[in-house]
């Protein structure tokens, strides 16, 4: 995955780093929250990269751990896409709600 790298020396500790050129801290935090049922994620923001350490709630085989790390990376990608959608559609979201309630008398003048 472009923008992320597994920290080879720390593979057993389930560490994955994301480039700040590609991903925002908010996106990483949202993805970390999403996997809270599987792991607690330590997030360390360093110059140029955000390093995430996944501490699984239960012991995992290497194969399962790698699969879960890949799921986490995909979740980061999804969150990045969601951020792009939210940014582009924010004014439209407000406009639609404004239209929806335009005859209710609940709008400001």
């Amino acid at each position, binding site marked *: 995955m472009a923008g992320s790298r597994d920290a080879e020396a720390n593979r057993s500790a389930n560490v994955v780093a994301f480039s700040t050129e590609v991903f925002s801290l908010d996106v990483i935090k949202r993805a970390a929250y999403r996997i*809270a049922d599987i792991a607690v994620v330590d997030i360390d923001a360093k110059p140029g990269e955000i390093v995430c350490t996944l501490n699984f709630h239960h012991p995992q085989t290497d194969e399962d751990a790698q699969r879960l790390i890949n799921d986490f990376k995909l979740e980061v990608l*999804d969150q990045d896409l*969601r951020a792009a959608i939210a940014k582009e559609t924010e*004014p439209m*979201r407000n406009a639609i*709600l404004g239209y929806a309630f*335009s005859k209710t008398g609940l709008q*400001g003048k």
Partner: protein
Amino acid sequence: MSRFQPLSAYEGSLADGYRLLPFRFTRLDGDDYVLTNQAGEFIVLDRITIEKFVRHDLPAQSPVYGDLKSKHFLLDADSGVAIDLLALKVRTKLRRLANFTGLHLFVVSLRCEHSCPYCQVSRQSDDKIAYDMSIETAEKALALVFRSPSPALKIEFQGGEPLLNFPLIRHIVERAEDINRDAQRNLQFVIATNLALINDEILEFCKTHDVLISTSLDGPSDLHNKNRPRPGRDSYERAIAGIQKVRTVLGRDRVSALMTTTEASLPRVRDIIDEYVAQGFEGIFLRPMSPYGFAVKTKSYNTYDTERWLKFYFDGLDYILELNKAGHFFVEHYASIILTKILTPFSPGYVDLTSPAAIGIGVIVYNYDGEVYASDESRMLAEMGDHTFRLGNVHKHSYQDIFLSDTLLTPIEESFAASVPMCNECAFEPFCGADPVFHHTTQGDFVGRKPTSAFCNRNMAIFRKLISLVGQDDDARRIFLRWINP
């Protein structure tokens, strides 16, 4: 106060492409994702297509472009009415909010002659003073009922076993009808009873006043009687006899039944459904155990987890679809509520699946002792000693005190799904709800951590299953459409 820009402000960039309209996406199965817009319309796409779409790389000739356009996921140069249509659908979806509290539960007695281990509330006691609602309390509660602006008011009598205090039910119904001669609401009454005490006098009263009956039927005789012990071990026999009596006097559609899933129920979903079919019901509501009251005290609640309940539920749903495919119309009511949200612009207002949460603003409970609770689950929680959702007392507090209290408004505001972590980006949010009472009980706060929430895990699994069936099984889709358009 915020103002909204005119539509023209958003149209500048449409000449050479499209603009995204607000939507969310969540992984469905494998590489498939479900996308929903603000009105809950959905489409299923693979991830690569979503990426292209969001990055504005989806050509207008693409097979999915037309679907995305017609379902209001994008706006291009010739989709002039899209915003108006989408706004209309959003308004339709939310219209029930303006009606405010429609369901008013009166706990007329906490006494019960059953001793069900999963019961959330009842008391084995002959002490009428301690556990029965008084006429004075009922009068105060009725005054609050008619303060609601809702054009439709449903008064439901709960217990314990409410028929143990039938004289008060009679009084409340007659008084409500008196008040309603001026108030002119669409007034409906329901008695939630185990039917063990039903008799001709009660039935005649119900017929005269158009009272509906809701009862419990957990399955075949052995399972029902195991789940619902009473002196004589004849709960099932009394329930069945009662159902027949009600149908004879009031009419076939005037009695409905609810089941509760115990651990003993788990391997027997087909038996349970067969029992409902045999008793002439046209549907069943497959319900999990609630984490309240005696269900927790007797350890009934923790006897199975979400995964086991979901297997039970999906086995049941598959069997019900088999029955329908064989020509027998039979509905699973929980699925039907969700499908109405998925496939129509309407929201049925089912208490557990609404956001903002329905506590107080959709349902209110007047307890036997005059205390007012935000929902049935709230008063069950109170029986465990947790009064977090006690809104006041009919003898001490005004309508304003009760409905504008921070005790009610704080959990509603904090749990609002559109602004809750994970729900705010979940494609299933338009179909789901906020349940601050459940999350307070199981996780200690009104919001709850969704990744570990049984409410979230259970409902997401059901949404995924139903959306997959709608998309992949033509027969199932036809059956579902019949359920929501009978």
